[in-house]
């Protein structure tokens, strides 16, 4: 095992220090993320590509390292997103549940403090989220929605680029237990 691989697979500092988000932050951060998604694109349409609820879900899953908590967290954020959309409730919930679960599972094996790992995981989960949503929309609702992989990849890169500073900011909100 090389030094690089050891650094990727070693335990996270957050795990070591026992850092945890404040309870108020657990509610306010996803709320702000959802508000950002429904409010800001009104004035800055270019920011509509930014899926902050997804990034928050990934962040909580990666930092929490608890698959069960991430499942519920992702489901809650997804259902909240569904509630503000015109689609039947459950699509975003299912997708974000799976994203939370897999992100939490991955965080148990990788050092999610590494920016590269964070970037790759963010890109992967954004693509996974979009693809799964497209599949569910076609399969469960029977809607013929197109899937543009190239555009999704670009948006994934942009979201991943935003995820790096966002995760740093969110790390500041943590308190050491």
């Amino acid at each position: 095992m090389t030094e690089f691989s050891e650094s990727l697979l070693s335990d996270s500092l957050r795990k070591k220090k026992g850092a945890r988000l404040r309870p108020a932050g657990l509610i306010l951060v996803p709320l702000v993320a959802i508000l950002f998604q429904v409010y800001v694109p009104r004035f800055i349409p270019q920011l509509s590509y930014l899926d902050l609820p997804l990034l928050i879900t990934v962040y909580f899953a990666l930092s929490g390292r608890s698959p069960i908590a991430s499942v519920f967290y992702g489901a809650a954020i997804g259902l909240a997103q569904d509630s503000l959309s015109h689609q039947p409730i459950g699509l975003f919930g299912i997708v974000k549940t799976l994203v939370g679960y897999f992100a939490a599972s991955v965080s148990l094996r990788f050092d999610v403090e590494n920016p590269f790992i964070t970037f790759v995981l963010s890109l992967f989960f954004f693509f996974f989220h979009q693809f799964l949503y497209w599949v569910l929309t076609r399969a469960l609702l029977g809607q013929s929605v197109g899937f543009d992989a190239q555009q999704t990849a670009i948006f994934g890169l942009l979201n991943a680029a935003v995820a790096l500073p966002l995760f740093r900011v969110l790390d500041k909100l943590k308190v050491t237990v």
Partner: protein
Amino acid sequence: MEFLLNRYRNITVLLVVLFAQLVLLAYQVKTNKDVPLIRVWAVSTVTPVEQGLEFVRRHTIGVVWDYFVLIHVKEKNDQLQHQLDQLKLENHFLRTQLSTAERAKELSVFQSETPSKTLAARVIGNGTGSNSKTVFVDRGSSSGVEAGMAVITPDGIVGKVVSAYPTASLIMLVTDPSFGAGVVSQKNHVHGTLRGQGSPKCRVDYIQNEEKVENGEWFFTAGDDRIFPRGFPVGQVASVHNGRSAKEIELTPSGIQGGLEEILIVTEGVHEPIPTTPVVTQTQKLLSPPTDVTATDPQAATATLTTDADKLRQEYQHVAQDENFKYGIASPKPPDFTKVGKDQQPAVKPAPAVPPAAGATATPNNGTPNQPSRPAPVNGQATTQNPASGQPAVRPPTATLGTSAQPPAIHTGVANAAEKPPASTAKPTATATQDKPRPRPPALVTDPTDADPDSEALIERVQRVQSKPPAVSETRSAEIASPPPSAPPKPKTPDATKTTTSAKPVNTTKPATATGTSPASGSKPRP
């Protein structure tokens, strides 16, 4: 089981959560119903915050944003003002073009409608002179314009040509102080002389105080000045009051109200009737008059005989033809008029009691059976109720420029009849019909009592008529006075002389000879 749950707790929770959401989704899709509770919670949570954010944004970022926006407002305002000026100019230009096109179209329509020959011209300048009202037009003697020709527009008369040069002509407007023209009022046919005053309004002189002229009444050209053909609108009375010896009437000339740009020079004038209906405005397009088939096709004229008088006249003509008798020539033996009504329908058989609108007999022709009438008036006067009052304008008998100034008799008769109640219209005697047309008694066509000679109403009418002989026409007296009042009246042979007089078309004026000017193309001989 407990072991499995402990070992696969994560995946179990995941599956449970996924299954729950799948069930929720399936329920919504299956039942096509929503889950309002979750949505209400989410919306109730998000929207107040959103409202607060919007409030803050509006009062903070909005103000700052507006400030930055206002920086460029002046520049943009100048740009828009410049653009607006350009558009205004363009709009004005297009409106002018459109107005010119509309005027040209109206002029063209009027030119095709009027029987007079006209020449379109455009005003190119004003004449000099402090008080003179003259303009130059772009048509001159090379185009056939001569001094003394009338100048009109579809709205009314404009003036007359005072000088014709090779390429231009000088027009004296009706408002010029030296202008004069013979005019006649529409309602009472009061004749007067139009004078310009140098102001926008003209006056009408030589109308006695006893004459009746009303405010708003229209005046038309009388045709007795050898310049303007009869029947062109002149203007509306703006004010009228009695003077010392004559009325003082101020007239608003209608021909120059909208500004003068395009005019028509009347090269060959044809008299037209004074309309009994209000003058139509330019926006109301006149329909083309019906084709005068009877003027060219005698067969068609016979086929279109519809009134009782026409039928009666035809029967008398048949009798005269059978006996080789010619009306108007002295003959020792008059034809046997007792044959009238024997081989055909009774000559004076009353009209069937059908509604006036059911057949052509309901249309009054006022004694001019074959005369083409103008289109129905725009205001829809009842032409089927009273033939005297509601008849449309009828083309007058032949009268061209330079002919007698006396208006054709039909106009006077029609106009007078229009002003009088129907009872008085039946008064004229047989001799009066020679020079004054008399509308047909409406009872011949429309009175349902005529349909049944045995009816009690008719008997009562006979008794009433006998007590008041002047109230009925001579024809009617001859028709209904013969049978004894006590006995039921029977269809009888009418008095030939009287019936012929009354049933004959009232307008027997022969076409007047054109003197000096061209023959009246619009005048048509009476059958």
